[in-house]
């Protein structure tokens, strides 16, 4: 197990390298000149040139890339082109917002997804199964940001049950933190819930037809015990894969919902950085995302091992 973890972590190094090269290349290919923005509204050509020189924009691309990579290895991702704000500070301020949102959404995905999946999959063809199948079709068709807007209109503005957005820090007021997260997290989780429900329903239905399940039933075990103790563990493997992919999807989807709900998370930071061509910030966010995705994939692989001893043996 230890070997697996170390090997997977070591694999991220070349990945980070390739990704940083792609990001740098894209940022340089896309036209844009931070110097003109920094110089302000009544700038002169000379001042723009001065700023370009100060930012090192006139150096050869390879030199600029080298500077960036050197920073990564020394643990210093640099500062924003536009302010004295450190990239690490910018990300650590924004990350809790996005992690709160994605984390709660993931909880919803697992909680509702598994519950609905069990409900539908344990009795295929039942009324509950049919209702859930129809709802799932609707849920998969509705984009998260649209659902977010509808939730704001219905539960935020018309009924007044929930705030329409604005993030509250967990350290300031944990209950209020949760209260402000419910709507966006639900909107964000919807697609994931549907995905997990459908996966679990399908795989549970297949598992329930296996011989060992029939044997368990024949032994006189209760239906609940058969499903939870015997069938679910086997049916869970594809679901774990889906949940792992959902982590990445939730982080991506959080970007749109942060905008809709006025949260200042990583998504909002990324959009600002892209619009302003703030390369150090973009680079920092991408490296962080790669790291998070790698970790979540690693956790998924570890979960496979737990669920399936055959994988562990390899």
């Amino acid at each position: 197990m230890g070997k697996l973890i170390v090997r997977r972590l070591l694999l991220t190094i070349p990945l980070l390298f390739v990704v940083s090269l792609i990001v740098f290349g894209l940022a340089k290919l896309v036209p844009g000149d931070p110097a003109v923005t920094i110089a302000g509204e009544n700038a002169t050509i000379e001042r723009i040139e001065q700023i370009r020189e100060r930012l090192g924009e006139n150096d050869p691309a390879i030199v600029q890339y080298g500077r960036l990579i050197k920073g990564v290895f020394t643990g210093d991702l640099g500062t924003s082109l536009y302010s004295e704000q450190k990239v690490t500070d910018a990300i650590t301020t924004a990350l809790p917002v996005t992690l709160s949102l994605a984390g709660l959404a993931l909880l919803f995905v697992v909680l509702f997804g598994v519950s609905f999946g069990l409900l539908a999959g344990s009795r295929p063809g039942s009324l509950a199964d049919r209702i859930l199948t129809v709802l799932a079709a609707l849920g998969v068709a509705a984009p998260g940001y649209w659902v977010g807007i509808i939730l704001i209109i219905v539960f935020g503005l018309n009924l007044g049950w929930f705030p329409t957005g604005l993030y509250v820090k967990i350290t300031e007021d944990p209950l209020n933190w949760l209260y402000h997260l419910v709507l966006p997290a639900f909107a964000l989780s919807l697609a994931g819930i549907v995905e997990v429900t459908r996966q679990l329903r399908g795989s549970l239905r297949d598992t329930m037809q296996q011989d060992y399940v029939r044997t368990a039933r024949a032994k006189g075990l209760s239906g609940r015990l058969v499903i939870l103790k015997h069938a679910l563990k086997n049916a869970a493997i594809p679901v774990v894969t889906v949940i792992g992919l959902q982590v990445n999807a939730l982080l991506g989807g959080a970007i749109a919902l942060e905008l809709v709900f006025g949260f200042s998370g990583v998504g909002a930071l990324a959009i600002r950085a892209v619009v302003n061509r703030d390369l150090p910030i973009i680079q920092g966010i991408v490296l962080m995302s790669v790291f998070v995705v790698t970790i979540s994939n690693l956790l998924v692989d570890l979960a496979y091992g737990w669920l399936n001893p055959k994988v562990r043996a390899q």
Partner: protein
Amino acid sequence: MRRSLVALVGASLVVAACGDDSKSSEQTTATTKVAQEVTTLASTTTVAGSTAAPSTTAAAKPIDTSATLRFSYQVGPTSWDPAKMSSSFDTPTAFFAYDRLVHLNPGADPIPGIAEKWEFSPDGKSLTFTLRKGVKFHDGTALDAEAVKANLLRNAAGASKGELAPIDTIDTPDPLTVKLNLKAPGGSLPGVLTDRPGVLASPKSFADEAATKALDLMPVGAGMYKVTEFVKDQKIVLERFADYWDKTAQGAAKVEILILTDNNARANALKSGQLDIANIEASQIDEFKKISGIKVTEGLSLSLMHVQLNRSKPFLDKKEVRQAMNMAVDRAALVKLANYGYGAPNNQYFPKGYFGYNEAISIDQYKYEPAKAKEMLKAAGVPDNWELDTVVPNLTYYLTLAQAVKDQMAAAGINLKLRPVDPVQTAPIFYVQSSGDLLISVFGGRADPAQLLNSLFTKGPIQNPGGHTTPKIVELVAKANEPGDQKARAAAVQAASKEITDEAMNVVLLHSSASFAATEKLAGFTAWLNGKPEFRGVGLTK
């Protein structure tokens, strides 16, 4: 690894897809910098000269001086370091914490601020400010002549280089007197110093490199409120500054500013009672007017939309061609179509009610007469179906406006080839590279009208690509830059403005409206002609 890459590509696609949203909030940035109903203006300009700013017509109920005012704006300051502030959208948030020598009144005329008075020498070669006694920065440092000198010299070497160019040296004969020695006519300076270039920070806050770096993220000003918490691009929390020189300006005990780039997020937060005031889009005005418990403040601003010409390009150097282009647009229709009827059609660079506005320029000077325009173009030798490379910032509002202009001009045989560009690329493409024949975009107001005339119509500033001008305009703009009393300066600015409209230098389309929505508890807030929300004397009733 493949999974990670797929996720990454997915994430970047989402970023790309959301790009539009964030850009439309930039459009907010560009279009909502606005304010002032002409009728409000008429009543509020009477406070001109008074140092305690806006009139408090709404303050029938007493103001709750222990209240927290919650305000949301679409952008925070680019920097808290005055020498690095580079956007005109910095000031609505920055002026809570920073003070200036000169303030504006609601009609955008300069009035005393930290300086009690100012005077030009008879030859116009120097400008002397007399400061208020006993003014302090938030760190306790005295705001005296030396502090002002250090700040202005520093700002002049930084982001305000262009605006403060007339300043040569600064003398400080005594702690309350600051004498600016000028190397060029400085008539615009009092106006300029009401804005970013005049922002004053404690000299201790830029005494060494470490302090200067800290100043970028935390202001040390002398404003009405002192910042207690700042999270960049998210939140600014301020408390009343106990030693502020003008207690009437401080309506609230605490101020919370939330930076929300998305128009709808801002509107929703206001509707659900999480904010007291926020700026809104022209498209949202009618909706907010219908909501009980919310009042809308709306009015004309100095910000305008125009078709800017690179007059060094073929045919565009001909006056009659430019006049024909001015006759090929229906301005009133554009206001209805792109601005939901808010704002005002115009063919001069200053809005009605402003001291630069020239009554003598008729809006009918260039009536919409596409057939006549077509004839004039033909007479000038312009080929039929004349193609013009037209740069447009790639944002919904500008594209809508540009498409409407394109349709109107087509009737006069002018074929605009619209080239949508990334908004941050507009200046590099049209100004720096001098690429494109026309630019359809916003021009934000300037603190002094002479600044606008200077940057758009004289040779040198990057905002006049191609550098075309006429000797008469150069002469009139120079006169507008001369010091003088407000009346004399108004006459000079208006004369230059008239010549610019007569010469049809560009095609001015309309002046935008600035609009704000607030709870009914908000008192003392009026629309100002500079288009920016002003919070001197603003508070919440009990």
